[in-house]
C-alpha cells in the first residue's frame, strides 16, 4: 500500500505499508524526514546503514544519496515527508531569528543543513505524524491542514535537534573547538550504532571501532554528553522498545525479548521491574484495563 500526497508548494507526503522493499539510490531535490510507525526500516545514508524504529526518525538533506531496505514478516508502516527547500528556509529563519530580525528582513548566511543521524521521536512529533497519517488515509483534501502538520513536524525536528545536537555538544568539555566537533561527530556515530543494533548483541569494542574512538575515550565522552554510559543507554533503549511492543502488539514476551535484544527472560524482567516498577506482563495487563475503561469514558 502506498499513499502519496503532493502539495502545490512542492511538499510531498508518502505513506507506505509493506513487508519487503529495496529502493534504489535516490537523490531528492527536497529535505526528507523519515518516520517508521511500525516495524523497522534499514536506510543507507552516505554509505552508513541505520535502522529506523518507531521510537526514532532521521532527516536527510537535499540531494543526499540514500536507499532503503524493508525485509519483515509483518508489514512495516513508514511515513516520509519531502519538504521543499523554500519551506525549510522559511521555517529555519523563524526558528533562528527573533521577531525584530524577521521584520528587518535579516537573512541567514547559510542554507539550512540537517545533521543526518537518528533522533528520538518526541510525544509531540508522534502525535502530529499520527494525525497526519490519519488525515492522509482518510483522503482529506486540505492543503492548508497538511502544510500545518508539516510545519509542526519540521518545528518538532528543530526542537529535538536543539536538544540532541546543540545542547549535548555544549555539554562536552574540550579546549579546542575542532577536537570538540570531531569527538561529537564520533559520539553521534556511536549513538547511531547503538540505536541501529539494539536488537543484536552489542560489544563495547564494536561501538568503539565503529566510531573510531578508544573504549576509554568513548566511555568518558559518551557519559559526559549523554549523562549515561553506552551500556546504560542501550538497556534504556531496549526497555523503551519493549514497553512500546507490550503496548502496541500482542506478541508473546519471548518474542519481544528477541526483538529488543535481551538474551534471557530473567534479566529482562529484573531490569524492567527495576525501571518501570512492575513486571512486563502486569504492565501489559494494566494497559489493557486502562484502554478498556478509557473506551467507556
Amino acid at each position, binding site marked *: 500500500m502506498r499513499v502519496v500526497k503532493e502539495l502545490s508548494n512542492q511538499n510531498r507526503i508518502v505513506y507506505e505499508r509493506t513487508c519487503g522493499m529495496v529502493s534504489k539510490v535516490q537523490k531528492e531535490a527536497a529535505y526528507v524526514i523519515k518516520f517508521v510507525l511500525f516495524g523497522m526500516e534499514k536506510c543507507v545514508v552516505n554509505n552508513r546503514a541505520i535502522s529506523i524504529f518507531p521510537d526514532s526518525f532521521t532527516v536527510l538533506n537535499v540531494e543526499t544519496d540514500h536507499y532503503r531496505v524493508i525485509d519483515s514478516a509483518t508489514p512495516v508502516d513508514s511515513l516520509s515527508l519531502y519538504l521543499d527547500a523554500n519551506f525549510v528556509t522559511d521555517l529555519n529563519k523563524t526558528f533562528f531569528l527573533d521577531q525584530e530580525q524577521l521584520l528587518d528582513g535579516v537573512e541567514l548566511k547559510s542554507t539550512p543543513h540537517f545533521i543526518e543521524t537518528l533522533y528520538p521521536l518526541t*510525544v*509531540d512529533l508522534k*502525535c*502530529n505524524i499520527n*494525525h497526519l497519517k*490519519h*488525515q492522509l488515509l482518510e483522503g482529506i483534501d*486540505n492543503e*492548508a*491542514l497538511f502544510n*500545518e*502538520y508539516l510545519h*509542526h513536524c519540521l518545528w518538532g525536528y528543530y526542537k529535538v535537534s536543539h536538544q540532541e545536537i546543540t545542547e549535548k555538544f555544549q555539554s562536552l568539555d574540550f579546549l579546542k573547538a575542532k577536537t570538540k566537533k570531531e569527538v561529537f561527530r564520533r559520539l553521534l556515530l556511536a549513538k547511531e550504532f547503538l540505536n541501529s543494533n539494539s536488537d543484536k548483541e552489542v560489544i563495547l569494542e564494536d561501538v568503539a571501532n565503529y566510531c573510531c574512538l578508544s573504549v576509554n575515550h568513548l566511555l568518558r565522552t559518551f557519559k559526559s554528553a549523554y549523562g549515561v554510559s553506552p551500556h546504560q543507554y542501550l538497556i534504556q533503549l531496549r526497555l523503551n522498545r519493549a514497553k512500546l511492543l507490550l503496548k502496541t502488539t500482542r506478541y508473546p514476551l519471548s518474542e519481544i525479548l528477541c526483538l529488543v535484544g535481551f538474551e534471557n527472560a530473567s534479566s529482562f524482567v529484573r531490569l524492567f521491574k527495576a525501571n518501570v516498577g512492575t513486571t512486563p506482563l502486569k504492565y501489559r495487563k494494566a494497559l489493557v484495563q486502562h484502554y478498556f*475503561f478509557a473506551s*467507556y*469514558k
Partner: protein
Amino acid sequence: MRKLTTTHLYVKVSSLVNAITFFSEQLNLQVKHTSLRHFSGAVALYDATTSIFLSEKTYPGQTTEIWLNTHDCLEQYCRLKSNGVWFKAQPHYMSAGLLAEFVDADGNSYFILERRNYQD
C-alpha cells in the same frame, strides 16, 4: 466503570443573535434556543459531554475563558480558520499539550487544547 461527567460552560454575550451565528456558522456547532426556569439564552453543543450556555443576561459562574478539549488541535485550528475565526496566535505547545486560542466578538477567549501525555 467510570462515571460520565458533563461540562456546562456559561458565557455572557452582548448579542445572542450574533453569538448564535458565530457558534453555528463559524464554529459549526449545533445551537438551540433554551428557556429554562434558571436560564434563558442558547445552548451550543461542543461535544457529547460539553455544552456552552450563551446568554445576554448575567448568571453566576459565567466565564470569559472557555477551555475546550480536542483530539486534533491542528485540524480544528485549520477548519475554524477557514471559517473566518480569528486566532490570537498560531497553535503552540504547553506542558499539557497543543493549544490554540481564538476570541469571539465580545472578547471571550476560547482555548482549544489537545491534551498530550508527556509522562509516558
